[in-house]
């Protein structure tokens, strides 16, 4: 099937805009129905990467797991006495 380039362009951008505008409406609607969170929170959670910087329990867990793995099974015990952010 042959389409003119203009048609494909308009069709394409049109659908993209139409779709995303509808999604805007749906998102607002969803937030309204669900009940929005507080406005303008002081410290929004950063995006994709998991957070960074602090010595969180996940971090301790990860380090401990790495330790455990590295040391094999026959070792009797290692303890992370302290961990400081520098």
């Amino acid at each position: 099937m042959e389409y003119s380039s203009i048609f494909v362009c308009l069709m394409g951008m049109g659908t993209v805009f139409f779709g995303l505008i509808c999604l805007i409406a749906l998102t607002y609607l969803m937030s309204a129905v669900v009940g929005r969170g507080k406005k303008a929170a002081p410290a929004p959670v950063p995006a994709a990467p998991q957070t960074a910087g602090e010595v969180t329990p996940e971090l301790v867990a990860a380090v401990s797991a790495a330790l455990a793995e590295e040391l094999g099974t026959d070792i009797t015990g290692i303890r992370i006495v302290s961990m400081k952010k520098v």
Partner: protein
Amino acid sequence: MDAIIRFLQDTGFYLFSQDGNWRCLIMLGIACVLLYLGIVKKFEPLLLVPIAFGMLITNLPGANMFHEIFFAGGHIHWDLIGGQPVTASLLADLHSQGVAENVLAPYIQQLMTAAQTAFSPEMVEQAIAAVTEEAGAAITPLEAQLQALVQAEQAAAYYGMTLSDITITPGLVDILYLGVKLGIYPCLIFMGVGAMTDFGPLIANPKSLLLGAAAQLGIFITFVGCRFMGFTGPESSAIGIIGGADGPTAIFVTVLLAPALLGPIAVAAYSYMALVPVIQPPIMKLLTTEKERQIVMKPLREVSKKEKIIFPIVVTIFVALLVPSAAPLIACLMLGNLFKECGITERLSKTVQNELINIVTIFLGVSVGATATGTTFLSLQTIKIMAMGVVAFSFGTAGGVLLAKFMNLFLKEKINPLIGSAGVSAVPMAARVSQMVGQKYNPGNFLLMHAMGPNVAGVIGSAIAAGVLISLYG
């Protein structure tokens, strides 16, 4: 002695000297350059290293790790994969479906030898001559050979013989490539991406979606450009989608619409994604005033867990209904996100964004790279595709920035137009570029979170654009 010669003729070193195989040398060079870019320059190494390695192994003559004939003519030839012999009638069939001659030629040659042994070289010659004569000028030598072989095969069958016992042992890449051909890998990668994505900034500021839409401009501008350069509609669509700056989307579309271009398009898509920090800033600066770049945006509201859980479901339903062809991509992206957000499928989310995506990335990368054989990659087309890739990224960037400026005409709370460029996706690189450029002109300005909105919106936008193109040309 004979055996030694045969052994030597099997080595890749000898095969390099064979007709057309000088291309392989160049391809090895290109593969090494890509490895260099991936490893040293850190161009999307997770994908570029496997792709480059796939390119390398597919261009080692004699290694036979990928056989285009298994996937010739848009079919998967299970019987050949299973070890059934290649017959002349199958080859003739594939030829009539427009499969490239360089894919078929080696098998025709092998069958020719078989026919010459079964009958006699003279008889085969005669048959070819007869076919050629009958058809007149309207037949290529290869076609004549093929038709003669079909006749020979039928004659052999009549005497209860089989002409062909040429079987193809499937290589590693052939099997891995099945996942590409069937469109599985891009979906699974998107599942992992979804589990790594936070749609929070988008839910907090749904207007970002508009910027994600505008940045798809690059796709369609490129489409037009490619049409003018002589590419077919489906090919132009596949090339255009590079501008979506989403690797899995680009591969998904290309496999469906223009599988022959898979190698160059994948390389272009991932290379330019890595080059986003180089391509975007000049365009962003060109299109914005210094004052605009310094606009400070209000921090985003916090998004509740409920919203984050419902959002992926809403998007899946709506987008899949609007553009059904985009359903697999969007559904997988959102399923991954749902695993992450719903809080009680932690172990699925973890697997999806770690082991599953890693395994699939390797399989995808190696097998996509392996489609880039010398004959397909070393052509003017590839250069055109690489050129159009820059066009796609540039216009995408421009589209996002310009729409942000346009929106500012109406909005009370101005948007910093630098976040518009993040709409091309290339998550999270493009958002970081917005942050970086913004901070350069106003060191206290933190645009990252605001840019994440258009950034993830761009993924949805590209999937919709892909759906439209597949639905038109698929």
